[in-house]
């Protein structure tokens, strides 16, 4: 036993810290990992809520995750594949379009739900502090569940057609990460602009339609001549969609498209988050 005397009682709860609240400028919130970590439980709960609520009180439930891309596949196969006779890199048109529709549906839904996420949670935003990025990020995270389900269906259809996915299938996670970066950047910026300008709500559905045709979903990018073909990959979804076809159906490796799209996705991410961070502090005043 030691002979140490009893030390005087230490200060109660020494871990209590003092925060200074004042007008800030520059980047401080979104990109503060400490802040994000502190609120991690809330991030989890928001994502869990978005997943749980997504298909509550719908008759078909999570089947919608599949019905959307499959429905489009059928319609596109009839009109673009059948009637219009659009090329499909020598693959069955249904497969060709489904492989693109799976990532595209995720992208479009994330954009739609994510850009509304702050406004539709305005009661929370105006009454409680938390890193606001959780709202758009939560909407996107919830979409990942849908993406997983539709990926399973995609592979099922591939096998039904008697194809075996090539080794390139291992690239799939990389493609998904590129897509996540792009969609998080775009959604962060759009949701932030939406706080101030509700015009965003009307622009998004229209923009998604245009974006669909700017992306080789219904047509192969091989229809476009170089150097324009590589240039279109500034749209990050070009690399992702063509990458998906390569990874799942074994088309020619579109490495230059994926490369350009990856760089572009990083630009999307950085620019989107930077803008979000700058305007985040005044959300509560405008929402």
């Amino acid at each position, binding site marked *: 036993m030691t002979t140490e005397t009893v030390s005087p009682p230490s200060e109660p709860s020494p871990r209590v810290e003092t925060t200074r609240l004042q007008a800030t400028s520059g980047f401080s919130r979104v990109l503060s990992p400490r802040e994000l970590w502190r609120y991690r439980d809330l991030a989890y709960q928001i994502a869990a809520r978005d997943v749980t609520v997504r298909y509550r009180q719908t008759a078909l439930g999570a089947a919608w995750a599949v019905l959307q891309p499959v429905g489009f596949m059928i319609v596109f196969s009839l009109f673009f594949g059948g009637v219009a006779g659009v090329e499909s890199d020598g693959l069955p048109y249904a497969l060709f379009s489904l492989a693109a529709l799976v990532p595209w549906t995720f992208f479009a839904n994330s954009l739609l739900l994510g850009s509304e996420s702050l406004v539709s949670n305005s009661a929370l935003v105006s009454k409680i502090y938390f890193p606001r990025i959780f709202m758009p990020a939560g909407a996107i995270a919830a979409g990942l569940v849908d993406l997983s389900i539709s990926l399973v269906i995609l592979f099922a259809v591939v096998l039904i057609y008697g194809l075996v996915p090539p080794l390139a299938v291992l690239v799939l996670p990389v493609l998904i990460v590129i897509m996540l970066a792009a969609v998080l950047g775009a959604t962060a910026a759009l949701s932030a602009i939406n706080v101030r300008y509700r015009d965003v709500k009307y622009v998004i559905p229209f923009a998604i339609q245009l974006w669909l045709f700017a992306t080789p979903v219904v047509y192969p990018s091989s229809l476009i001549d170089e150097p324009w073909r590589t240039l279109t990959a500034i749209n990050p979804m070009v690399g992702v969609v063509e990458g998906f076809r390569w990874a799942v159906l074994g088309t020619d490796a579109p490495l230059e498209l994926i490369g350009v799209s990856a760089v572009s996705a990083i630009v999307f991410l950085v620019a989107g988050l930077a803008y979000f961070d700058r305007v985040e502090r005044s959300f*509560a005043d405008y929402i």
Partner: protein
Amino acid sequence: MSDIAISTHGLGKRYTLGTGGRGYGTLRESVVGTAKGSLGRLTGSRWPAVDTDTIWALRDLSITVNTGEVVGLIGHNGAGKSTLLKILSRITEPSDGWADVTGRIGSLLEVGTGFHPELTGRENIFLNGAILGMRRSEIRQRFDEIVDFAEIERFLDTPVKRYSSGMSVRLAFAVAAHLEPEILLVDEVLAVGDAAFQRKSLGKMNEVAREGRTVLFVSHNLAILQALCDRGILLERGEMMADAPVGEAIDAYLGTLERAASTDLLERTDRDSRGYDDTHIRHVEIRDAVGGHADAVVAGRPATITVEVTEVIPMMECQLTIYNSLGQAVVTFDSEMSSPADVREAGAGPRFQCEVGSLPLLPGRYRIDVLVKGKRQIQDGLQAAAFFDVEPGVVGDRPMPASGWDGNVVLPHVWRLPG
């Protein structure tokens, strides 16, 4: 040991009015603004405004709150109370000055904020707990306590949208009340639920206050503030008017209310006119039906409350609420709930008269809030439009003492006594 929990230094919050400021902006306005030379609007660190019309919601506030103090914030609507809470809870940033906050801050919010109607009670407890800043482990630990307090065991797995409003109120309060932040901000949330639950939540707040936690209270119910707080801070138009023991602060607040009532009602700017300008409340008074002074009446005597307005418009209705000196509502008179005995006559002049056959109020000081409606819209409203004193009188042939009785009203009644 009295550590400092909150200290603010010249804290201020400025809002910009006008098209370029608060409220809905459209891209078009922004584009026009850009064309006028305010480039970089979308990229500026703060969304700048075209207009320079600003209002200080809070100005130059320097206060120190020690750990364990329970402080009431008192003031009219728009005095800056909620703005202060918003700054302290980090929802919005101050424009000026700073605040140092020591310890975790939690807010007791308006009921139902953060509830999702599609989620079950159980799911909502976790979601709402996380929103209020609780760790999952903390929520799990206190889960049974919360469910117990809210009395909703049987409905735990029912979506909240199927709850009665009483149930969701209880659940919301239960989650919030079991928060354990070092500093608790409470914005007018106690006036919810039925009487029994109100008593229970008040008891809970009392318990919280006694646990040595720092609490900042906003309430219009002065009785609650008086009961729970040690210290009161009176705000008026964003500036601090008094920082004193709660009783003194409340007296100062009542003083400002009376001053407001004694000024010409048409000059008051704190009115609730919802943007309408068709008619305004000009004058409010209560008078003995037989005569006598305005604003001094005797219990048990017939009294008439008169509201004069500037203009007669179609379908006018009037609602009066009488409050006691602690800010608790005593009685409401509403012409919209009509009786066959009501008289509506054209050409009677721009005034409402509410006649009470026998005024059943206990002696004391009261105030009248007035709401005037027309065309099915609220046209004008004034808090504390008039003050009046009730003198002791005779109700149902029975006299009353000048003071000492609890409650606000006295009713005619008859006893049967032994021997």
